[in-house]
């Protein structure tokens, strides 16, 4: 009997959370171990240099392999680890393959999230994506749950933002 109760409880907890599954904390291994710490923290590169449409489009944009090669044609890396990763990157470029990055942040398809409205409203990337510049491997820093989004939209962030929270603004 206790075994059954344990299993039932486990099943309930899992199913309760699996529907609205939050991938908060999810940090998959990427095909090339790109370090935001180096590029953003040390080199002070602007997010928009790579994620070039974050202020123009719903889609923030992934940098083209050519964007990486812009520097890495000449920059081979300082440490052995870095050199190996850059070699992987160059390998993709030479094979004319896009680097198959593993997607971390994904909203359901019935939500339409406009990056450019947020970026242009002064919401920093770190507000939602966490301290990316400190992440050796990117992880999902926020739950991206609707309640978490609404929190800001109804003016409970610090500093408070003015944002519409009508359903049809995001759900259509």
């Amino acid at each position, binding site marked *: *009997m206790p*075994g*059954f109760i344990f*299993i*039932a409880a*486990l*099943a309930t907890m*899992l*199913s309760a*959370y*699996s529907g609205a*599954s939050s*991938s908060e904390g999810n940090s*998959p291994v990427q095909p090339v171990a790109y370090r935001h710490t180096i590029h953003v923290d040390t080199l002070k590169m602007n997010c928009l240099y790579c994620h*070039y*449409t974050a202020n*123009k*489009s*719903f*889609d923030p*944009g*992934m*940098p*083209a*392999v*050519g*964007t990486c090669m812009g520097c890495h044609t000449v920059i081979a890396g300082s440490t052995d680890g870095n050199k190996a990763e850059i070699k992987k990157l160059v390998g993709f*470029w030479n094979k*004319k*393959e*896009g*680097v*198959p*990055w*593993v*997607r971390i942040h*994904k909203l*359901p*398809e*019935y*939500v*339409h999230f*406009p990056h*450019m*409205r947020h970026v*242009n409203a002064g919401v920093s990337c770190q507000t939602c994506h966490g301290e990316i510049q400190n992440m050796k491997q990117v992880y999902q820093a926020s739950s991206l749950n609707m309640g978490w989004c609404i929190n800001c939209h109804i003016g409970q962030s610090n500093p408070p933002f*003015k944002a*519409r*929270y*009508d*359903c*049809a*603004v995001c*759900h*259509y």
Partner: protein
Amino acid sequence: MSDERKSAATITQNPPSAVKRREFLKVLGVGTAATTMIGCASEKVEKLIPYLVSPDQTVPGVSTYYATTCRECPAGCGVIAETRDGRTIKLEGNPEHPVNRGALCARGQAALQGLYNPDRYRGPMARKNGKLEAVTWDEALQIFAQKLGETRSRGGAASTVFINQHETGSFPGFLDAWLAGFGMPPHISYDAEADHAVIAANRATYGVAMPRLDFRAARLIVSIGADFLDNWGAMVPQQLDWADARADHDKAPRLIYVGPRRSLTGLNADQWIDCRPGSEMAIVRMLQGQMPADAAAQATGVSAAVLETFAREFTATTPSMVLAGSGGADGFELATAVNALNQSRGNVGVTIKPAEPYLGFERISSPAEVRGLTERMNAGGVSLLMVRGANPAFTLPRAAGFAAAMAKVPFKVSFSSYPDETSSVADLVLPDHHPLEQWGDAEPVHGTISLQQPSMDPVFDTRATSDVLIELAKKDPGSAARYPMPDYRSWLIGRFAGGAAALAAALPRGISAGTLGQPAPARPAPAIRAAAPIEQSSGNMYLVLYPHPFIGDGRGANKPWLQEIPDPVTKICWQTVAEMHPATADRMGLADGDHVSIQTSAGTLTLPVYRYLGTQKDTVAVATGRGHTSAGRYAKSGSNPLEILPLGEDRAGGVAFVSTKANVSKAAGYALLVTTEGSSRQHGRGIGRAIAIADLRAGRPGNDPAVANAAEVARNGGAQSHAGEPNAGGEEHGETMPGDATHTFLPGLRSPVARDAQGELGNEQSTKKGMYDPNHWSGMSKRRWAMTVDLARCTGCAACVSACYAENNIPTVGADWQVGTAAPDRTGFGANITRGREMAWIRIERYFEGGEDGSADFDTRFIPMMCQHCGNAPCEPVCPVYATYHAPDGLNVQVYNRCVGTRYCSNNCPYKVRYFNWFGYGEPARPQYAFPEPLNWQLNPDVTVRGKGVMEKCSFCVQRIREAENRAALEKRALKPDEFTTACAAGCPSRAIVFGDVADENWTVTQLAKDERGYHVFEELNTYTAVVYLKKVNHPAAPAGVA
């Protein structure tokens, strides 16, 4: 104990040892947990694949637009192809194009379903061991080159035939030059839908194939079977001009339609003269004054009184316009006589303008040439047959035996992109790019070159035929010198005035001033197989065949949108029916759907009957285009009436579609009609209202039979007026009722009548209204999205319906694999439609008024019906989960992820504009998936694809509203009036639909919503719809002054 054993036996199927209850539950529990855990971990890992090099002009998530030319019919309209991340997702009309001026018809919208057709050839095919097998391009071209060489060396160059789908532009000349280089004769430019008799008569009379029809200059238009609002001539500009002409109520021309079948054009006419097929010449003689009305009445079967009135009106009204298009054996003589009539009335140059022709039909070959080919092929007189874009094995009557004759040709090459009856008999298939994937041009009117450019990379491994021809020419010593350029694009640039730079400058607009200067080749006069006069055939009824307005000669049959959008006249989809007058059907004991057998000298066909008031009483009418044998998964639906049309041509060489009588008799069995129509009558509900022009001018409300219960509603009281006073009743309906256009259209949320039900929102003193407060910083409730639909302009063409399908990812449900298993009696194409499961967010309702006695004197109302975004919506309060609610800016919103599928909202909607996903039409894993690859490439990424169990409806294109708001926010400005519009409004060639912010005086919709003709459908229900319909204006009698 025994119970446990029994339950154990059924669950585990382990006989003897009894499983104890606890064990059983443990097993169940672990099983569930395991399932849940697996479910948890099975979230798919998505990859983000970046570009190698970012394209300069493409912003991911933002559309890029390319101007090009539509090739779905010869008119040559300009389209703007919206592409997103390299995929074309929507076509809009090019506003700068002189032909279509921003509008686009249903066929044009459905071009995308040709581009992404799941049955397209994936690559070249060659016949090996009797079967078409995939080969590489190298091999395919090598085979073709070899065959070309063999044909020439055997002296067969002069007996090769190239059939090209008729088009304008540089390609026909290019093709002829290429052929000449190989010693081959000029090509046959074939279009099975074009009205060849009229084209030939126009050429003889005016020197042009299709003069421009200036409807605005006419006071009276007489169309003798010329379906200029269906797909006769250059449909979109004709519809644009017609709607504009009718919108000027005072100067609007009357339209009288003469013919045995009331087509869509006929339904838009003010009067229908239901003459017998083949008797149209008597009408023309009468109008010419050469035949008295009595004699014409004898010949046509129409009453002498009607004809006399008609003749008098015609004589007294100038300028007029007479059009011919009967499709009969005497079509050429009829068209010639009509041209003479126009000349004698002084119409030429006034309403009929040969100086400004539509050039789409110049240089077209006659179908007789193609039919004559079958005789040549049978006699072994064709050494090599090449076919591009045309499907003569299907579009010619079966009696011509084209496919069988093809078998006698030693080698047959098809450039078709799709399998069809002709290409499936070919020996080599070199699939052409779709028009949206290739370079080209057109010359639709004098002085304008319409440019065609690829809007995306090719979907499959196809090649533009023009490029294939250049490649072959380069390999041929005789031709190589003339083709130094690498591809067709370079060839075009070489001929373009100003070269590459000028072309690049002109491409964004899609048009360039200039002319292509293509000389017309001498076409041989083909031997005609003259059709005998229809009265000489035997049968108890006349057989009238006509091209389906969307599917046409069959080219649209494998496009599910064109199959599913109901025919504008019959409201039938996916099915071929035999249309018959209800009185005739009664005589034969036929109800809707009963089978009839139609027998001609060429064969017999059994079809379900559709009782249609617009059929002449001795006629049975059938649409062509369906009933393919090998043209893809959707094209198999319906039947092909060309199987029973005897071979016969008019004097110009056009196929005589109305050439024979038939023996029509009741046959065994019946079929459910695949129709979206509930009733063809309004029963006094006042959905589609009309006002006579005399009443409109006099400011009288008029007497509309569609609003039979108006007096009763007014007497028993309607909604409370917005000042809180009850309707005094007894007043003329529509003059003081709130929500009527005469009242202030309230910006903001709701109608005043629901005030008590709105809590804080209804309380004028409350400050807790959030975004519904007009003073909220977002200003959202200062907007009120609304729409006007002018029924005086709407012709019922359903271009809006197809635009909506394209924009909003609406699934088609009529394919034969989309049937559930629950109803075994409903199978086959259209089964879901028979259960009412069509998903069109906007539909055209078509109601008849009058004609209950079976007379030809009935009026038709077309009402585009979409979600009315009611201010006092019946659907909103009944949703148990708040999946539908009223937004501050006036939209009735449907939130798909909240919907649990109760369907109470649809139940409560009086307009029945809510559609439920009974099956997983939007889910790739489910068998009813409506978008087999690559049709899903067309899906609009801005619109959620709905899954099973979710309710959907018109959203007023909320994604376009958001797109416009986002753009304005990025540019730090307010929205401009008329900055954007909905998909339905954008495409409409009648400009009937206008959308916008009705709370802002500067939007066009605001002025239209105040029009005196405005009304709301079911306004007595107090729904406070955001859609204002403007009454149709009828022009019932001849204008005053005619005796």
